[in-house]
């Protein structure tokens, strides 16, 4: 009897936990399907006739599609550049135990972005690179590169050294070994690094807020700008929020295992 009672109590706790986690997402989704009148109703309405008009409005009237594309361009290029720079660096860190180098690159992850942002702002202005994809991608690489290096150096360490030594004995060069043996074995690590760095670039607000203007504006800024109108169009904002969160959430659901390992990596390794 006691065991059954505990079991019920446990499931109640789990359901409560799940509800708390889900509530903001659910409320966002529900509100995005309401008319403005339903949203401002008091007490809040739980039963209403859903409408897609907010989505039509957001994707139709605004330049939302362009911001979506901008976000995608910036994230894809930031991830690409960080893989290009980060994979060889991570390999070297893993193979030669370059702890100090790892720390320096990790510092970029730990340091507040805003302390680099002011000098960038000044320099990019001087170079005429404000509101350019180049400036935006470079700034985002500073977020994504440490993620790639961190995840991949841990991953490379798990590949047995014997494999490389055997290839070396067979006469392969380091470069060849890296390209033809190490990288093909690193699929899971690369998926983890790519997914996480894409999401972090996608979600970044601060860098784009300062470095982009009308032409390269990314989604988080666009969503934020909704708020600046005097009379907030809650339905529109919520539809926009759903749109911006959807890609990251979907990626996470697809690559759940990889995202978990990426986020918890290192801490557990101690």
């Amino acid at each position, binding site marked *: 009897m006691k065991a059954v009672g505990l079991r019920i109590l446990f499931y109640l706790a789990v359901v409560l936990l799940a509800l708390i986690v889900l509530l903001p997402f659910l409320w966002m989704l529900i509100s995005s399907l309401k008319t403005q009148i339903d949203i401002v109703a008091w007490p809040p309405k739980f039963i209403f006739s859903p409408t897609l008009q907010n989505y039509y409005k957001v994707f139709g009237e605004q330049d939302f599609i362009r911001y979506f594309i901008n976000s995608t361009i910036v994230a894809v290029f930031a991830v690409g550049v960080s893989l290009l720079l980060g994979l060889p660096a991570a390999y070297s860190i893993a193979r030669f135990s370059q702890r100090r180098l790892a720390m320096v690159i990790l510092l970029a992850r730990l340091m507040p972005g805003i302390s680099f942002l002011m000098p960038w702002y000044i320099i990019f202005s001087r170079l005429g690179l404000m509101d350019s994809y180049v400036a935006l991608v470079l700034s985002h690489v500073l977020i994504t590169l440490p993620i790639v290096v961190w995840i991949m150096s841990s991953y490379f360490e798990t590949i047995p050294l014997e494999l490389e030594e055997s290839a070396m004995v067979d006469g392969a060069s380091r470069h060849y070994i890296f390209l033809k043996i190490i990288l093909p074995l690193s699929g899971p690590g690369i998926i983890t690094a790519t997914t996480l760095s894409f999401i972090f670039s996608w979600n970044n607000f601060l860098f784009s807020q300062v470095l982009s203007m009308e032409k390269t504006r990314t989604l988080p800024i666009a969503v934020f700008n909704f708020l600046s109108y005097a009379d907030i169009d809650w339905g529109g904002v919520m539809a926009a*929020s759903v749109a*911006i969160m959807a890609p990251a959430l979907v990626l996470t659901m697809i690559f759940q295992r990889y995202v978990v390992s990426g986020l918890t990596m290192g801490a557990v390794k101690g």
Partner: protein
Amino acid sequence: MTQNSYTDSNIRWIYPLPAILFVALLMVFPVLYTTYISLTNWTLTSGTAPSFIGLSNYGQVLLEPRFLQALWRTFVFTFSAVAVEAVLGVAAALLLNRVFVGRSVVKLLLLLPLVATPVAVGIVFNLFYDPTIGLANYVLESLGLPGSSWISHADTVLFSLVLVDVWQWTPMITLIVLAGLASLSDEPAEAARIDGANEWQIIRLITLPMVMPVIVTAVILRLIDALKTFDIIFAMTGGGPGYASETLNLIGYKYSFEYFRMGQAAVILMVLFLIVLACSVAITRLGKRIER
């Protein structure tokens, strides 16, 4: 062939070189530049070149009440948020550290806040907190409690923001601790059970001490990130009402990109930078100690 052997024997710096150059260019140089700016009286809007004024920016900013309040508030926000996250996060991890139906679903749910766009999260919580139409006051009133003014009043704004941070980042600690628990061997807990420990004693005397290094690492990671919280505060309150929710990050942003008082902004950025650096040094020290 000679080409090959040259690359081979120098691979340890050739491979990381591009990444090092990149980090030097985009991180190290800007920090040095910020240090220099902090010693000048430069304002971007004046159109004049920066002139060297020594440490007088520091004297001015470090004594300014608005800065000191923001500094204090940063610590209050960070420590209260992370303290709550640590307690809830570890508790949730201990709760979920067993086999049950729906475990993988719950773990997926825990991931969602971590990857949700912070700005959008802030906006959703704005709707929650809205005093006239928000769900938060509706819940309070349904429970027979008085409504709160949440983020629209100076007394409650910081607490309301802490709540958002707790919602978004507690799962991080839970997931890290869960992974830590999974990496523990079952044997010590079984040995303790035979030695006469009850469930609570096993958790308190065996499991928690064994997973403590992981908890500490997770908490320090969270501390560093919480110190830098910007998106949700900027999106939800912009530092307001008045200056009531300004943290160092917010005030640094405003001095740089709203007032364009670059010299003074640089001082604020230096302070934030040094605090985070100190925390980061702590984390590596700790890592080394655990390794030993």
